[in-house]
């Protein structure tokens, strides 16, 4: 049995190495579970494995060098490198396991055993690399104890890697772990007993060997410290980058919130308001105690609370984006109209962790819409009243004109034989004729205004319309006019389906087709075509094109005005059709434009929504914001 001892300086160095390696591994390990946005994870896993495995190995190696046997000691290079590889591979496997299977206790335990056995394997492989002139034997209970320490230390290391926060926690954890790793090593060493066949002859040589060992220990330790230092540097640079991105993202977020003039708030998964909500306080004037929990609902208009809750519950069930509108009592006591949009923030398992929402003040917008609606209604009422009040005097004009006609016959009889009788009667007849014609014209105009004002008030009942079939029916209804002029009307067979009011759409295209056939050029055979092109996802443009007489450019806007007509006035018409078409198209959210060249032809482009606009847009998916 050989008397063995330790070089205290090298022992201290080995423990220092162990702690530093632990710190580095913890630091790199925390990157593994960092935010997804920080890039791929594998470099951090590799780094942590190298730091931890390599650090433990160099601690072990320096510890071996601190071990003084008083004999010439050499190492088998192959086995030594193998022991390093085992350490790195085992720690790498442990980190990878946790990264893949999650950070639960079970997964950490499996990885800890994996890593601990690897470390123990590394230690005893390293011991086997020892070339000394003697026999090496082990005390089995001590070996078992060293393996147990290795497994415990590795498990603790992994647990700390994934669950510690902050620099001080990291430091303490690194110390505990470093000492544990060193403890495992020296326990393993204590388990070893070296028996020498012959002593003495190598004593002089042993001295130089000790010197050489010390130098080697310093080289290994130096190299290890350097590598660990570089790893920590890389980690801290990455930390700075992450922090910068986080700050930038926070600033961007704040700017975005301000840009939408919104009020930001957060709710827990059940809709309780927790913590500080400065935005909410600012609009409602509620104190923290008041809005805490479900207290925020007190600021919502009593008439809107029930609908808000129902819509909220439906949203939570469907895991959708919450889109809603309600009134909120503002600081000054007035009710303001808000549009709400809230997005569920999901945790790693896909459960809703919290809600982030924005209240946007749309009071002015709603007010403007109401004003617009009111003023539209007023115009319609106005048109309606005016046309009625104009009608009443017209009845008198017409009525008494007819009474005058009756009187005229009596005058004829009374003046019979008078020299001026014929002239007087002629004058009366002419005057009465003009009055009657003017009244009839006026009656037509009033009827047109009434009709338009009624269209504006009509309730649409949207239904699914196959436009090819609908337009063929419309064209068929006008077949006799079309055939009389020898024209052909072609409806494209592939017109899309839209959802709109059937009567209104028939009126629009009936008018356009009627005009197209009515104003053809007699000099060439008439051709009218109806085609459609998609405009974005939600709209379709239907083009009614003819090769007729065309409309002069200066009249393009005028043709849509009430009672206005353009070009040669050789066809019957009262100048209502296109005004009516435009009012209809606009009332269901579309637009109509004319392209025309005099003498070449006219195309009316009617752009209609595929379906009536709905107030609420439903997002099909919850926002994929993953939380750590």
């Amino acid at each position, binding site marked *: 049995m050989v008397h063995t001892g330790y070089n205290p300086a090298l022992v201290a160095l080995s423990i220092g190495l162990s702690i530093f390696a632990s710190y580095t591994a913890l630091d790199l390990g925390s990157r593994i579970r960092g935010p997804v946005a920080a890039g791929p994870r594998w470099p951090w896993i590799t780094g942590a494995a190298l730091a931890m495995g390599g650090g433990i190995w160099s601690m072990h190696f320096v510890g071996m060098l601190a071990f003084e046997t008083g004999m010439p000691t050499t190492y088998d290079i192959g086995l030594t490198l193998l022991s390093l590889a085992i350490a790195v591979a085992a720690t790498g496997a442990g980190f990878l396991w946790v990264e893949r299977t999650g950070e639960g206790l079970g997964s950490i335990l499996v990885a800890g055993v994996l890593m601990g056995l690897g470390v123990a394997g590394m230690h005893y492989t390293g011991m086997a690399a020892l070339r000394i002139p003697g026999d090496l034997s082990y005390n089995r209970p001590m070996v078992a104890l060293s393996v147990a320490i290795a497994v415990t230390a590795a498990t603790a290391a992994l647990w700390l890697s994934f669950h510690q926060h902050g620099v001080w926690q990291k430091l303490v954890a690194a110390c505990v772990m470093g000492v544990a790793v060193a403890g495992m090593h020296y326990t393993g060493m204590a388990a070893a007993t070296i028996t020498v066949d012959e002593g003495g002859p190598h004593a002089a040589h042993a001295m130089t060997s000790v010197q050489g060992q010390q130098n080697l220990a310093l080289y290994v330790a130096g190299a290890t410290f350097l590598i660990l230092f570089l790893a920590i540097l890389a980690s801290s640079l990455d930390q700075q980058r992450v922090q910068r991105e986080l700050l930038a993202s926070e600033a961007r977020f704040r700017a975005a919130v301000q840009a939408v003039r919104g009020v930001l708030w957060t709710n827990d998964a059940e809709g309780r308001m927790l913590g500080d909500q400065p935005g909410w306080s600012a609009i409602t004037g509620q104190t923290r105690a008041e809005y805490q929990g479900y207290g925020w609902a007190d600021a919502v208009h009593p008439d809107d609370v029930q609908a808000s809750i129902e819509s909220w519950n439906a949203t939570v069930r469907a895991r959708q984006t919450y889109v809603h509108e309600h009134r909120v009592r503002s600081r000054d006591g007035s009710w303001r109209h808000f549009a709400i949009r809230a997005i569920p923030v999901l945790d790693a398992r896909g459960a809703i962790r919290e809600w982030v929402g924005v209240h946007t003040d749309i009071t002015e917008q709603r007010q403007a819409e109401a004003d617009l609606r009111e003023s539209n209604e007023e115009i319609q009422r106005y048109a309606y009243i005016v046309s009625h009040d104009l009608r009443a005097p017209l009845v008198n004009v017409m009525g008494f004109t007819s009474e005058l006609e009756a009187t005229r016959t009596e005058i004829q009889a009374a003046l019979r034989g008078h020299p001026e009788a014929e002239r007087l009667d002629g004058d009366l007849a002419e005057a009465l004729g003009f009055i009657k014609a003017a009244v009839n014209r006026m009656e037509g105009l009033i009827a047109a205004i009434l009709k338009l004002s*009624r269209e504006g008030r009509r309730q649409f009942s949207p239904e699914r319309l196959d436009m090819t079939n609908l337009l063929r029916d419309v064209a068929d209804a006008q077949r006799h006019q079309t055939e009389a002029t020898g024209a052909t009307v072609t409806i494209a067979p592939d017109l899309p389906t839209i959802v709109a009011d059937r009567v209104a759409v028939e009126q629009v295209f009936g008018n356009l087709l009627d005009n197209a056939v009515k104003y053809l050029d007699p000099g060439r055979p008439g051709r009218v075509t109806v085609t459609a092109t998609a405009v974005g996802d939600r709209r379709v443009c239907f083009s009614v094109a003819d090769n007729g007489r065309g409309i002069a450019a200066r009249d393009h806007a005028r043709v849509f005005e009430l009672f206005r007509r353009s070009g040669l006035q050789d066809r019957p018409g009262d100048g209502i059709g296109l005004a009516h078409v435009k009012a209809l198209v606009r009332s269901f959210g579309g637009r109509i434009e004319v392209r025309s060249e005099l003498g070449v032809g006219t195309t009316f482009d009617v752009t209609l929504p595929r379906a009536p606009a709905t107030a609420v847009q439903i997002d099909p998916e919850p926002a994929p914001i993953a939380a750590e």
Partner: protein
Amino acid sequence: MHPVSIVMIEDDEGHARLIERNIRRAGVNNEIVPFRNGTSALDYLFGADGTGEASARRHLLILLDLNLPDMTGLDILEKVKANPHTRRSPVVVLTTTDDSREIQRCYDLGANVYITKPVSYDGFANAIRQLGLFFSVMQVPQNP
């Protein structure tokens, strides 16, 4: 037989005159009591006390225009049909409005006939003359 009075509530003097002429042309010689506004017509129909006692035991046929200066004819129609003394009197709404909702509302309130004044004189005169002929054969009950 108790004579039937025709109460004509019509703010347009010209219309009133044309109506009267054409009713007479149909051979209807009943008394026509004209009113130019709603207030005076209500005074006549319901009396100074407003109870409607004034119209008890009268035989009345009411010709009613909807566009009156001081109230809408609907107010008068509603009151006439709600008062026990006047509700049996036939009410003929004769107005320029041909809005379907207005027509529905009048019949809902208990109007007996709704006629839109045609603008063409021949149409108008014809309609009133036929109305006169209709008056000459219709039974008007005594008010309770």
